[in-house]
């Protein structure tokens, strides 16, 4: 009997084009929008371009060999290029700054060279405060500070000047990059994880559809199925399995689209990813079932309630504003432990970013707990229901 119910339920659900649109097409569409809008930002942290600067080619600048050398090294093309320097006249530099083509102008007023400290020979002209401007200032400060150190050391005498100069020219890098895992902390991925969470919660529309079609007081179909001699559990399980199959299939399509078409990085632990999707679909379905059984209003109101609450949960998981997930996790941690959308997004995130699976399994465990509670609540409401009149 179960197989019979399952088969016809599958056929029935797959012809529900409205729900198909919201559960399958809409997440695909939103993913595409995300990709178009900030796909450009993926894989980078933004602002990796060298800082554009205009240097006034004055006689003072040409006489200042140390500054020339320093700026020259920093503007050498390569991975560590920090500056993009334009050597130009004062008026041209002003024009470039006014047009926003450079972040600032470096002007050397008097040649004081390495050796004098206190007053600065170089000054910076900018039109706003920002990272590029701060880097320019740090470059010039560097020059100033090195001069100060050299002066201070020289003033104590008994120093081999040529050795000191050689040392000053040969600056060392004292930082070594390490990383906690191989994953790049790509901020934009968070939006796609929240999107998968949204798709999972939208599976609730199938769960709600099931409750409409099984309760005698909600639809004619429900009434007809209630008087059939089939055991209620077989019917419920058949409906459930069919909708789970459909929503899981939709989820796979979404994942395939994200990974292969939009090149979203979900890591390479495919088994765990699928487990998350399955747990997510079950959570979504049971959430929809609860709303479908607890609210005794019209179908429109139920759909609106489900969609609005799903969207709220997704908002808290960072779908519209990614920092929200982190804010909730810090300000109201309990909320992020019971919000299925946050759990799904965080499961993806922890799979991607952490080497161990502690946090991943915590998320999956909580997600299963959420589903169990939801199923239990709807079971209490659905079981042995009697209708005096409908």
């Amino acid at each position, binding site marked *: 009997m179960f197989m019979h119910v399952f088969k016809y339920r599958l056929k029935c659900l797959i012809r529900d084009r*409205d729900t198909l649109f*919201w559960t399958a097409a*809409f997440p695909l*569409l939103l993913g595409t*929008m*995300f990709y178009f*809008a*900030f*796909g*450009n*930002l993926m894989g*980078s*942290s*933004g*602002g*990796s371009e060298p*800082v554009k600067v205009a240097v006034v080619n004055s006689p003072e600048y040409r006489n200042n060999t140390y500054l020339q050398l320093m700026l020259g090294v920093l503007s050498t093309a390569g991975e560590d290029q*920090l500056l993009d320097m334009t050597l130009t006249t004062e008026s041209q530099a002003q024009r470039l700054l006014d047009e926003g083509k450079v972040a600032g102008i470096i002007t050397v007023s008097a040649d004081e060279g390495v050796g004098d*400290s206190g007053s*600065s020979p170089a*000054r*910076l*002209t*900018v*039109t706003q*405060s920002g*990272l*590029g*401007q*701060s880097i320019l*200032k*740090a470059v*010039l400060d560097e020059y*100033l*500070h*090195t001069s*100060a*150190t050299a002066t201070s*050391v020289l003033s*104590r005498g008994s*120093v081999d000047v040529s*050795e000191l100069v050689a*040392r000053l020219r040969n*600056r*060392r*890098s*004292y*930082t*070594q990059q*390490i990383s*906690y895992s191989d994953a790049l*902390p790509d*901020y934009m991925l*968070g939006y796609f994880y929240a999107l998968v969470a949204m798709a999972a919660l939208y599976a609730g529309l199938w769960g709600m559809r099931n409750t409409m079609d099984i309760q005698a007081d909600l639809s004619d179909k429900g009434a007809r199925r209630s008087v059939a001699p089939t055991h209620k559990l077989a019917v419920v399980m058949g409906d459930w399995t069919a909708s789970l199959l459909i929503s899981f299939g939709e989820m796979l399509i979404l994942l395939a689209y994200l990974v292969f078409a939009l090149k979203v990085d979900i890591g390479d632990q495919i088994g765990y990813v699928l487990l998350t999707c399955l747990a997510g679909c079950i959570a979504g379905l049971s959430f929809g079932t609860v709303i479908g059984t607890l609210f005794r209003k019209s179908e429109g109101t139920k759909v609106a309630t489900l969609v609005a609450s799903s969207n709220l949960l997704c908002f808290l998981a960072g779908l519209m504003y990614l920092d929200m997930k*982190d804010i909730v*996790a810090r300000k109201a941690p309990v909320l992020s432990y019971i919000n299925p959308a946050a759990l799904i997004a965080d499961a993806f*995130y922890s799979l991607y*970013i*952490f080497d161990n699976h502690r*946090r991943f399994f915590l998320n999956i465990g909580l997600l299963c707990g959420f589903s169990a509670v939801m199923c239990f609540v709807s079971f209490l409401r659905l079981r042995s229901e009697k209708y005096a009149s409908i």
Partner: protein
Amino acid sequence: MQVFRAYFKVLRAYAGSIAIYMAIFIGISTLIWRASPRSVVTEFFETKTPVAVINRDGDAPLAQGLADYIADNFTVVPYPDDPEKLQDALFYRKVHYVVIIPEGFSAGFMAAGANDEPVIQKVILPDSMSSHYVDMRIDKFLNAAGIYRDFGSPSRLTETAEDRQAQIVAAVREDLRAETPVILRVAGNAGENSVQESDEAYATYCAYSSYALLAMVILGISSAMLAFNRRDLRLRNLCTPMPKRSLEARLAVGHCLFALGCWAILALVGIALNGTEVFGSGRGWLYLLNCLAFTAVATSIGFAAGHFAKTSSAQSGVVNVVALGMSFLGGAFVPQSVMSQSVLVFSRFLPSYWYIRAIDATKALAGSVSGNVYPIYGYMLIQLGFAAAIFSVTLLFSKERQMTEL
């Protein structure tokens, strides 16, 4: 008048759903409004990149001195030495740089020669300029310290290793005190500068309002049309003594009034949130006019949706897809400047692209209206062109459909 009354009666039934969009939009706008800066910028501020400092070298004076120097130049966000928390912090951009001073760093640094010095470990965001910025400061501090170590520290008669470290730190900090003079040139006086700031907030509001405008206008107009286009109702209306043309004219006036109402509400909310400063310079009127042009676009799309959507579920699909799609692709949510060129080439075929272009151009006028405003009117005309095209195509198709239906 009867048609007119019926029109707004229909709309009243949908007031709830329309209000939801409005409420969501006002909520988001308020959040943005609270987040956007309104301070007057008259001096230069260095960017204080957020960093986390994990000092495993404890109280050693050199490590402490470095940590203090970092704290003076950057915003240090306190985090425990827990990789999971730090990874979270990096992913969510709470910090851009994690500095790890390894255990025994200070002693190792002091004992080392020029070639076997220990290093500071860092965890950074990939290719970000801000990490170079932090690198520069750390390298500067340690290079100076290295010079004092190798070329005679302030006094060679030091007693303990700690004292020597402390003296080096003091000497280095003294050297690093000097600052390059920075001249901040602003167009006009400080007063105008503050106008600029509030312009930014208002421009962002206008960009976001395109989403609300599209959603509300399309939903409202298509709902009303769906009701009037119901086959039975339409056939009944056709056989009344009222000429078809005058019925449709009244509906059109209804559409326009409704759309204008939405525009007016959004304009008033914008003024309530951002104040009227932006109108003092005349740019406020440009923003409003631009928004009105976009209202025409929204009206035409609502008109098309009302004609082509047959069921209310198809209608809600259209509302969401069009409003979200146009806003995302046109650059309402994410600035056009960070979108990829290939997407922008495609976006040119959307009216929302020109709406945002006009907002950006108006914002760039900053200061006075004496700049070149003609391109902005051009952008508005393009939007009106889109509206006219959508109207015409819809009318063409609807005429054909009426022929086949009857």
